């Protein structure tokens, strides 16, 4: 369960939105909607621990009973997906996935895991490919799989569907939600597309600028 307690972000002492209190249960999707500039993306950055220092923050972040505020970003176990796939351009598709695999997984298993993961997103045998040679939809799927392979305990979605065309969009949305459901991840979706919110099926929260 992902829980936010009295979270607020300020710039120069001015809060961006009213203090947030929310809970997202395992396997549920909560959608956050609001105009651009209201601090949606900054909120997700804050949850990840990568928010620039110009912001002042307060409140507590809980994930499955752990308080995250003092945990290093790379130990928070929060997976995030952005608008852009952000596949590392210098690594092959397989290497991108391997980057996310936890180190505890042995070398012999790693190749197998990656092949399985690629099968799951219908990209079997594409491990050695240059990410730049993939289509937009394929890249989005690799990005999703990369996030999941890091074994996150919650999923943050920063408008990950907005750059895909209409048809791909629906399919990719279903794929993301299906995986979140299967892995029982609490998911926080930020979007300004009402169709995304509807498809997510969970609670909708309007975030307004103060």
């Amino acid at each position: 369960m992902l829980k936010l307690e009295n979270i607020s972000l300020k710039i120069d002492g001015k809060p961006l939105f009213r203090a947030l209190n929310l809970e997202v249960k395992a396997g549920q999707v909560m959608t956050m909607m609001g105009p651009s500039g209201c601090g949606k993306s900054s909120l997700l950055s804050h949850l990840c621990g990568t928010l620039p220092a110009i912001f002042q923050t307060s409140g507590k972040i809980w994930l499955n009973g752990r308080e995250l505020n003092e945990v290093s970003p790379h130990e928070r176990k929060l997976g995030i997906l952005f608008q852009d796939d952000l596949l590392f351009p210098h690594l092959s598709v397989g290497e991108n996935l391997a980057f996310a695999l936890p180190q505890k997984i042995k070398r012999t298993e790693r190749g197998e895991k990656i092949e399985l993961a690629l099968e799951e997103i219908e990209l079997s045998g594409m491990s050695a490919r240059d990410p730049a040679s993939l289509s937009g939809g394929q890249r989005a799927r690799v990005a999703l799989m990369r996030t999941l392979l890091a074994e996150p305990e919650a999923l943050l979605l920063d408008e990950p569907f907005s750059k895909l065309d209409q048809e791909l969009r629906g399919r990719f949305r279903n794929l993301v939600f299906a995986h979140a459901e299967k892995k029982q991840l609490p998911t926080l979706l930020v979007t300004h597309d009402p169709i995304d919110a509807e498809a997510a099926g969970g609670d909708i929260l309007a975030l307004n600028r103060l």
Partner: protein
Amino acid sequence: MATTLRAVSFLPAFPILTKLLFLLPISAGLFGVLLPALGYFPDLGGNQFHFDIFRQLLEHPALPYSVWLTLFSGIAATLISLSLAILLAAMLSRESLSGNNNNKINRLFVIVRRGLIPLIAVPHAAIALGLAFLIAPSGWIIRWFSLLVLGWETPPELVTVQDPFGLSLIFGLVLKETPYLLLMILAALPQIRAREYLRIGQSLGYGNFRSWLKLVLPQVYPLIRLPVFAVLAFSLSVVDVALILGPTTPPTLAVLILRWIDNPDLSFRFLASAGAVLLLGLTMASLIFWRVSEWLLLIKWRNWLSNGKRGSGNEANKLAAMSGFLLLGTAFFSVLGLAFWSLSLRWPYPHVLPQIWTQRNWERHWNSLRETAFTTLEVGVIAAVIALFLVVGCLENEQWRRVRFSFRSQWLLYLPLLIPQATFLLGIQILAVRLEMDGTFLLLVWSHLLFVLPYIFLTLADPWRNLDARFPQIGQCLGASPLRILFRIKLPLLLKPLLVASAIGFAVSVAQYLPTLFAGGGRFVTLTTEAVSYAAGADRRVIGVYGFLQALFPWIALLLALAIPRWRFRNRAALT
């Protein structure tokens, strides 16, 4: 953020270490030269402070002309280089605006732009040596003229190298400084969104060149002011180029100082120190003079910016293409001349090509060449690697701790480039002798580092800061530590700028003459010191060998820096 900071809590040590590394030798050097200038130099019997040495300096018969020559050649070289760089930059940005490569002039621009970086990498001394071969009365240009037009049987009696007005010295400096300033301007253009302004200017009916002068130049100049200052300071105090191309009786102040140091009578060191302090004074005064002139020009020309005069600027277009081509051509034939001389057995006047070709010159000098080349390589590589380590540390500190710019403004970075080398290096040498540190490898590398590090920082900082911040961010969310992100994401993604910066740092090290001479205490010989010392002799074949190899070294480094990422990422479309 507090948590990330703990993982990288050692990072603030980098800027501190780097600053110490800079400030320590520079302040020590200034101190070390000021004391003897004021008469205090116990080893030579000077125990009292007094101004007699300055009086002696001012009464020296060579001084007035020497000072005039220094100021004239330094300021003229800077002014000409800057004007040419502005002219060329205006034309080059036009070419990229229209994207039309069909006409001849545009094709010339493409050549000019491609030729820029290799030209910058050639050490000053190599260009100067090659230029001397080119423009000498018995040089290549006159030989061609003689062959094609004039038919001179003997070389004309003209003083074209080491002329008393320092014109050949100015030519040599312009050849090297114009491409440097041009590159600085081109690098600054995207920051001020020059393309958009040019488009607006043109839509308001201003020709391209006018738009550039009225809209872009006022915005871009503040960004290149420090490089311009560095060029001015360098031109005033340069030693190697002045030794090769500058007048000899009397020479520029920096060369005069060097002569006094080389004087077997050690008491001349007092005079040299006072001269070095005077050189510092002249440099600072020139920088202030330049800044005040900027102001006055601005006041006088302010109205010109908005007086509504439009023009096509076609004449400027041709002038730029010609001067750019002339510069590149001169540089190219200078280096080619070195290569030809190094391979010639007999090449008497007025033949335009060697009569007998040979590899004997290379064979004869092979042993000493190998040793010299190895020292050059060793110092350059070690200095570049240390500088790279410190610069990457400083940039990482900046990013993880979210502090913008680890140097207090860019001034500290430019400090070694703004203070005359002859001044603080002489002070360092005097102190080093007292501390019995002179002629050590450590001091040699350290002195090179002072010049290598700024260039590596300036080359690497922008690409590093411009890397999409979401890559490291996503790496963190995938569970990678800051160190793993550095090695697995940032360094590979920035491989090309890293290698190019290293190559430029290496080239800077290869080119150093005075630091090698002073900090090396005569114990270390590099291709540059060797080439310059042979320049005084008459054997063009030996000069050709050393000069050409000196030019070749940075090229090889640069070539590798461009080839390695291309090969490494041959299967990565987004990175090639």
